[in-house]
């Protein structure tokens, strides 16, 4: 049977070239990662870029080999049968050991960032203390298909007002407000099935597992950390909060908002208004 080796080699090569061009063209035209406003976001982005560099080298190398072999050795009817080769032991060892080493390298390089974001013992000291005392800034209950947020009356404070479970908690739906420049620890829970708490602009994604209460933290960069998330002339800025784990028919629209306030005073004012609305007796 004849195959059209040269034609398909050209097609594959074109696809590979188009991919490579896209990876150059996109970032140059503002189509790349969403703007990052998180204090640990830069670490995640650097890891991403490192892995992208490694895989790009592999991709280009493999595509060159693939397309050139298809071009040269495709069966257009003019060749004799191929020779049976018993394999090359050294080659096989090489192409096992080198990728394994690269993977181990990646694992080692990302380990500390993973711990910082995911493991309570490695959280920043202030946040770790809040985890131990069970004193989150808010509890986020993911449920089909909404985000139910419960704040203690004075989030982050030391007294009983800083704990969830009292009668004066503030209950809010879908719109998660936080002040910038402060550590935000949330207790992530699920009401029914798997969901995932995803803040694209803060490089944070955490599955909400039914039956588990998972401590999750982030900090929106404030003026002290350099690039403030919310400019001083605005009261607050809104970002996306999305569900990143398929949870049912409404998963595609299980969207909330993360509203980052200019400062703590602005956030407190909002929280007071929310509490007042919740206490209406008329």
């Amino acid at each position, binding site marked *: 049977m004849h195959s059209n080796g040269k034609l398909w080699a050209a097609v594959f090569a074109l696809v590979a070239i188009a991919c490579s061009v896209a990876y150059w063209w996109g970032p140059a035209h503002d189509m790349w990662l969403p703007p990052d406003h998180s204090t640990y976001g830069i670490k995640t982005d650097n890891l991403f870029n490192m892995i992208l560099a490694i895989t790009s080298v592999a991709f280009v190398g493999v595509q060159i080999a693939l397309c050139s072999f298809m071009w040269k050795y495709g069966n257009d009817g003019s060749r004799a049968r191929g020779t049976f080769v018993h394999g090359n032991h050294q080659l096989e060892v090489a192409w096992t050991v080198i990728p394994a080493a690269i993977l181990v390298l990646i694992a080692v390089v990302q380990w500390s960032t993973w711990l910082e974001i995911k493991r309570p013992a490695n959280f920043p000291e202030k946040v770790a203390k809040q985890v131990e005392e069970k004193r989150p800034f808010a509890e986020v209950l993911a449920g089909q298909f*909404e985000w139910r947020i419960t704040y203690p009356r004075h989030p982050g404070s030391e007294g009983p007002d800083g704990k969830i479970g009292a009668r004066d908690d503030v209950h809010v739906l879908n*719109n998660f407000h936080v002040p910038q420049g402060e550590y935000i620890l949330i207790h992530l829970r699920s009401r029914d099935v798997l969901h995932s708490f995803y803040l694209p602009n803060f490089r944070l994604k955490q599955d909400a597992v039914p039956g588990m209460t998972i401590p999750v933290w982030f900090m929106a960069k404030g003026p002290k950390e350099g690039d403030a998330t919310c400019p001083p002339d605005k009261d607050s800025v809104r970002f996306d909060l999305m569900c990143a784990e398929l949870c049912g028919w409404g998963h595609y629209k299980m969207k909330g908002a993360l509203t980052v306030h200019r400062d703590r005073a602005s956030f407190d004012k909002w929280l007071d208004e929310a509490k007042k609305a919740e206490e209406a007796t*008329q």
Partner: protein
Amino acid sequence: MKLRCLASLAFAASILSGCPTNTYPAGDKDAYPLTDEQVFWTAAGGKSIHDQQKGRREQIAKLDPLKDSKQINDLRTEIRNAEKDEAAEIASVNSAQVIMKLVLARLFGSPEHPTSPFVSMSTDVSPVFMQPGSDIEEPGSPLDTGRRLFKQHCIHCHGFYGFGDGPTANFLLPKPRDFRFGKVKFTSTANGMRPTHTDLVRTIAQGVPGTMMPAFGPADGLPEIGIFAGHAGPPGFDVDAVASYVEMLLMRGSVEVKLAAKWNDDGEINKGNAQSAVDSILDEWRQANAKDQDGKYTNVVEPKAPRPANFAASAEIGRKLFGYEVEESKKGEAKAGCFTCHGLHAKGVNSPPEDKALPDVPNDYMLPSMPANLTLGVYRGGRRPIDLYRRLYAGIQGTAMPAQANNLTPEEIWNVVDFIYQIGMSKEKPE
């Protein structure tokens, strides 16, 4: 080889093109189908036709909603089929259905071109009364927008015509609302009255926690009606428009029920009794939505006493009124009598058998009653004190939750509200 390529391309194209969105079940996009079930006629207060159906309904009321769902579904199907046959038999010898269809089409239009005797009853526009059959379907009008959004977001649960029979409804408990009854659960008006437009906006905007009804409100909420946060999507969702469309469906349902009751009682539908039926129903809707010059509703429940300042003392009185863990001898003192349905430990439908909750009281939808588990801290109609006050004062329409307006004083209602907040914090999980 080529044939296979073509076949796979055609297959992909057919999947990617999506399902056609304009096919209606029953093939009728030019009219809302008439209800062919006598459950609505009996709900209207007409005569109950068959003792056989009564027996089946009583059977359903006795079943456990959480465990016996297959039996409940089977019984409901039997009732539906039997009533369909009855209705078909009667319809064949009676022209009343033809008249009903005409009247309803004139007043309320069709799924593609809905109209309403009231154009808009949103919070900042006073009701405009129009001649029946007026065409207000211009793109952008509230009903047209509402219809479009309803078709996009609501029909898979609430059904194409709002009959609560969408495909998703099969998996849900509590069931999505069937708008044919013209009733909703969470109203700010008194017992037996229709809901206000704002009640519908509130339910759509904040959803019903504890059920599958999601929140559709805008991201910043609707602070003017006390909803403080909402949804960041879907974008462009006009809650007010959808509330107008739902209101139309409810009105249509209530008119149909009333017409069917007239048919039942008078044996026929003629110009006279059709007109009086329509007038009386529209009056009920007008009355519920009546506003004063400042735009405030005049017929909503407002507490006649302020909420007590001392929460703990108030909750203690509320506990006694509720009958929480009351002894056998003292049961008469529990004035509100909540424990009879919600159980001695307020766990409602999750009560252990020794609490003897769940008397066999059915609800309108051929389902056994499911009194709320009050220990969960989930408040379906809203968690504000005024919301709980209204649930107690006016009861919950279409369910066995009674109105306490004539039984408890305003202070006593606040006491029970405070007690409900107190046990809602207990965080006990159901069995």
